[in-house]
């Protein structure tokens, strides 16, 4: 290792020799970096799963443009949109088709479980607005009080869910209404609900008697062939009232993710957690490096007297910083990987460590250690060769 580093650095790996000379200090520094890595990875993992869950909702829809109320910061919040704007939008030559989207959540109490279901309801005749994955099953929703349930719904017996077929539906009572789950699909759970349910608009309105068919949550549009979304959106914005948000579905999903991570308490808390992790790492590495500098002032003063230039000492400290980053990152990311799979099993959230995140955290670790090193170099000035005699 020493020989390899010597080749790499083109000089004696003094930093490496110093670090490995004091195993206790090295171990605590590596543990500190690893701990900071775990903190950051876990927070990012949860935050990432939140974003995946947010995007998954949009993936269940198959449309080009979405019309929402100005206050609809996320897909399940905000005011309703008067359906009349749908008819107005359809008069634009660029709009091929449109449908209202109704959303609402219900508590499903059964066998002592209290499950929160997020309902997505559309006209079952317009199968094209459902994702390709479920499109062929939509016909079953045309019957009243029939719904399709998310296979990933939390708290529900997996075997019961897997056994659901159109000829063997699961009939249950939700908010005083009898509902038959006649089919299943693979959705995904997020922070706001335990699972998704697809129904027809008619079934939805029976479950929510206070809601009106003329006031859906969103209006979905499909573009006519050869028409450009941006141009159509510009025309619609000019034509429709300004209290409507008119965006592509992709834009709406992006806005939703940004809102959830920056404006929602959960997003802010996890973002703060990442920051804490980074700070913990920087402080620990700074502590270790500056103690190490303080312990070697005499050696550094000697090297100064021998004619080593200031860059040499900066090099030693950065060498140490990078070694700590590397040695800490390996166990840190392995432990994080384990923690992620535990959390995934426990919560059902799509918590993953994808390559980009691993790479970015690695770069972040190097950068944070470099910052610590840079701060620790201030102590070098205390090494004065004139004090050696």
């Amino acid at each position, binding site marked *: 290792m020493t020989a390899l580093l010597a080749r790499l650095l*083109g*000089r*004696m790996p*003094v930093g490496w*020799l*110093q670090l*490995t*000379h004091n195993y206790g200090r090295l171990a605590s520094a590596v543990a500190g970096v690893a701990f900071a890595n775990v903190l950051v990875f876990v927070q990012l993992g949860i935050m990432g799963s939140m974003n995946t869950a947010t995007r998954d909702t949009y993936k269940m829809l198959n449309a080009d443009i979405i019309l929402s109320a100005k206050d609809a910061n996320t897909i399940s919040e905000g005011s309703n949109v008067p359906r009349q704007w749908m008819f107005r939008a359809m008069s634009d030559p660029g709009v091929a088709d449109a449908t209202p989207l109704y959303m609402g959540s219900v508590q499903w109490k059964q066998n002592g479980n209290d499950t929160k279901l997020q309902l997505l309801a559309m006209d079952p005749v317009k199968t094209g607005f459902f994702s390709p994955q479920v499109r062929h099953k939509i016909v079953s929703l045309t019957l009243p009080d029939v719904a399709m349930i998310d296979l990933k719904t939390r708290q529900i017996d997996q075997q019961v869910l897997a056994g659901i077929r159109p000829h063997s539906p699961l009939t249950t009572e939700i908010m005083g209404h009898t509902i038959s789950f006649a089919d299943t699909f693979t959705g995904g759970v997020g922070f706001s609900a335990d699972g998704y349910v697809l129904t027809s608009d008619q079934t939805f309105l029976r479950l929510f008697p206070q809601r009106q068919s003329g006031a859906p949550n969103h209006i979905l549009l499909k573009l006519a062939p050869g028409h450009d979304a941006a141009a159509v959106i510009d025309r619609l914005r000019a034509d429709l009232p300004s209290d409507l948000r008119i965006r592509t579905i992709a834009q709406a999903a992006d806005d939703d993710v940004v809102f959830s991570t920056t404006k929602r308490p959960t997003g802010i808390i996890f973002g703060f957690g990442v920051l804490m992790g980074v700070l913990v790492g920087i402080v620990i590495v700074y502590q270790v490096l500056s103690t190490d500098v303080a312990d*070697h002032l*005499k*050696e550094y*003063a*000697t*090297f*100064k*007297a*021998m*004619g*080593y*230039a200031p860059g040499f000492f900066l090099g030693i400290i950065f060498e140490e910083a990078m070694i700590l980053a590397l040695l800490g990152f390996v166990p840190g990311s392995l432990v994080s990987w384990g923690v992620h799979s535990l959390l995934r099993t426990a919560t059902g959230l799509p918590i993953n460590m994808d390559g980009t995140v691993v790479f970015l955290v690695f770069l972040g670790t190097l950068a944070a250690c470099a910052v610590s090193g840079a701060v620790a170099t201030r102590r070098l000035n205390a090494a004065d*060769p*004139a004090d*050696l*005699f």
Partner: protein
Amino acid sequence: MYRKPGTPDPIVVSHLNHWYGSGETRIQVIFDATLSIAPGSLTILKGPSGSGKTTLLTLIGCLRDVMDGSLRLLGTELNGASEPAQVALRRRIGFIFQAHNLHASLTAQQNVRMGLEVHGTHGNRDRYDDAAAHALRMVGLDHRLHYLPGNLSGGQKQRVAVARALVGNPEIVMADEPTAALDQESGRVVVEILKALGRERGTTTLMVTHDDRIMGLADRVLTMEDGRIVSDTAPR
């Protein structure tokens, strides 16, 4: 003493003054020092404690900025010399300190190697280990190449320090009481090594010492008192 004709003196000091502290507490510790040291000589600087020997040595060795007067080291004026110029000059000097000042995390050979790496590593890397081993052989430590300083005796450590100071073939060797921390026998061995290598390579050596047994080895003995050079003798 060997002297190449026409070689300029490596150390030329004239009217050098130095103070410590500032304002009210400012005290002068070097008064109008003037001396010139011939190349290849072994000069010993002695005098009572507090007379300014270390101060003069650190000034000559570029470890302290010159305040007043002139000090030419290896042809370069140190009064007003830039930091990079001073760093470059230090590389041409071998320092031996009272304490060995070895790096505890580096083996004997690695410590000595540091005396070579300061000159850059281009192309010479592979030779450096051999050169370091050779320097340790000269101080009688070729069987301790891979020992950490913690596992060496005081005399052995000081010999490693001597090897480190000499390995880069410095033009000047400066030592401040190199034998103070050693017993008589080890001290004598260290100075004899210094003397022998100095003669072999024509190195100019300037050494501060209180040790009377060493005086006989010197070409010249300078005595300081209260910041002034009060006598300048040649023992032989």
